[in-house]
């Protein structure tokens, strides 16, 4: 059964500040949605709220994922249900190697599906990890490094996509994955994401500031976010309009002042 993420009138606060002011969005498996918008429009808040970060508090609305109430689930349950967030700023976890972390993540997922599961056999895990690392152009020695500690910006992004490729989520939210990537890295990372879409129909919400990544990951739908709301939705051509005209005309059209 193909999965869907259905967001209905979602409001969310960060502390006392009301950031999301009614988001409606339906993402089905196999679809690519791009979410564009200027800084401070609420794109990352949407990503964190969906992933279940405790500092982001949903105040109204509903999110249904695979027929279940996503907002009632803990962050780990959401991930095991098949939702993935590729972080813009992934945390370093000192002392925990990338390999140990990934193996634990895979085993948590397997255990979620089958409580009797004894975990992925180590030789199989090594093989899968090497294969995915090769596809993403990641040096094998990263497996033994502490997670994200001392990684460059580009290395962190590749490591995020490596995790995505290993965990094979149903829907992935990619939060500004393009920022800080040079063009070669952007191509590798995008190919990685496209491969998952082609192989089993991973759905994507690609959050970005710029048009650039959308040359590599072709969106089916483009949404423009402004002041916590989706103010425009359209096909891929909307991204080109944004590229040419910037965000000012949208601000004027919707009467939203630029943040100081």
């Amino acid at each position: 059964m193909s999965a869907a993420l259905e967001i209905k009138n979602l409001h969310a606060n960060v502390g006392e500040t009301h950031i999301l002011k009614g988001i409606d969005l339906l993402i089905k498996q196999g679809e690519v949605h791009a979410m564009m918008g200027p800084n401070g429009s609420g794109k990352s808040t949407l990503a964190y709220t969906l992933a279940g970060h405790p500092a982001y508090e949903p105040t109204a609305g509903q999110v249904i994922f695979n027929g279940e109430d996503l907002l009632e689930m803990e962050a780990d349950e959401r991930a095991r249900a098949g939702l993935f967030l590729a972080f813009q700023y992934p945390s370093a976890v000192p002392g925990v190697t990338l390999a140990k972390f990934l193996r634990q993540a895979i085993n948590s997922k397997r255990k979620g599906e089958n409580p009797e599961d004894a975990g992925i056999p180590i030789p199989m895990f090594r093989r899968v990890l090497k294969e995915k690392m090769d596809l993403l152009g990641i040096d094998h020695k990263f497996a033994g490094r502490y997670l994200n500690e001392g990684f460059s910006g580009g290395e962190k992004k590749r490591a995020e996509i490596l995790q995505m490729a290993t965990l094979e989520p149903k829907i992935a939210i990619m939060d500004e994955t393009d920022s800080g990537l040079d063009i070669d890295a952007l191509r590798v990372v995008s190919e990685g994401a496209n491969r998952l879409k082609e192989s089993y129909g991973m759905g994507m919400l690609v959050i970005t500031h710029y048009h650039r990544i959308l040359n590599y990951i072709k969106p089916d739908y483009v949404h423009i976010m402004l002041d916590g709301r989706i103010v425009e939705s359209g096909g891929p051509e909307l991204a080109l309009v944004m590229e040419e005209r910037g965000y000012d005309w949208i601000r004027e059209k919707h009467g939203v002042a630029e943040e100081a």
Partner: protein
Amino acid sequence: MLEFRLKAFDVYESLPMPTTQDEAWRRTNLRRFKMDAVSPSINGDAATSATLPASLTEQFAAETAGGHLVQVDGVTTSYALSDELKAQGVIFCDMSTAVSNHPDLVQKYFMTQGVKVDEGKFAALHGAFWRGGTFLYVPKNVKAAAPVHSVLWSENGRTFAHTLVVLEEGAEADFLDFYASNEGEDQAIHNGVIELLVGDNASLIYSGLQDFGTNVWQFNHERGRVGRDGKLDWVTSWMGTRLSKAFQTLELDKPGSWGRMSGVFFTNGRQHLDLDTQQNHNAGDTVSDLLYKGALKENSRIVWQGMIKAQKDSQKIDGFQANRNLMLDKTARADSIPGLEIEADDVACTHASTIGKMDQEEVFYLMARGIPRNRAEQMVVEGFFDPLLRRIPVEGVRDRIFSRILEKMG
């Protein structure tokens, strides 16, 4: 030995009980400790290895060990030493056997070069009442062919065990020293002395693992002494006791001596751990490296006071000390007090100390990959200890400490 004991008792009587007025005891209060209620362990008849938890026997009487020694309340219950080690001239036995069979060596090294009777009330008490413990002697230029293991188990938690390790010039050894007791109700004492004497060009890996019941009050004096181009890799772990106060001193006596101290501890409940470490650079061209890491839960408390000392002519030394504590509950308390006393001017000495909480962003990141919260928190704690565990050269020691950390995490 009787004479030695009587003299030590005189010293004990002459010294006042430490109070919080004494600098070294400022953060450790003995008010609740009833010295009169604890007496030295008296040999009962029924001490057998059957009382030792099977997990310990399996772990430490491992096939890889070239020798093992198990003592229950100061009485040897199980002992083996491989023919290979015997042929090498390695002496490995309990301390009472050492006194009878190797009186010359005992006389020469027992509380003469390592810990001295007069350095504190509890060193003197030990001198008077010491009982049981382990003697390891490796002759000149002998590289002990296999590690040796010692397990000191106490049923009533009253022990005065003595560890004496002597490596002559060019000798090498790997020694695992494990102290534990069952959980008891009555206040009990462990008053230990550990002496590690590493000769010129000798190399010792010493792992001292303490896992007493939480009814035990521990008072230890420990000293490692390293000769020219000698190496001491000194690992200690502190998991049990109601209260532990230990003085651990590393003496780097000659150019080229190298010493590394790695300490790992995890306290919970009302546990109180107070470690006083000193790295004494008594000669130039010496290197010391100390890393002590601890996690604290509930109402426990950890005190670490470290000192690096270098005399005026101890030039070109490299001394490092770091203490890092992870607070798992707000109710716990950690004091971390690094110190340097450096009289030489051409030195590289640094220290670091941090007291931090569990980083919730790290926990969230792990959870966002499907890892349940309790496992995610466990991983963050494992990660905290990982750089320290990587310094531990013996795999079995690493595994033992690691599994205790997980148990304590709950």
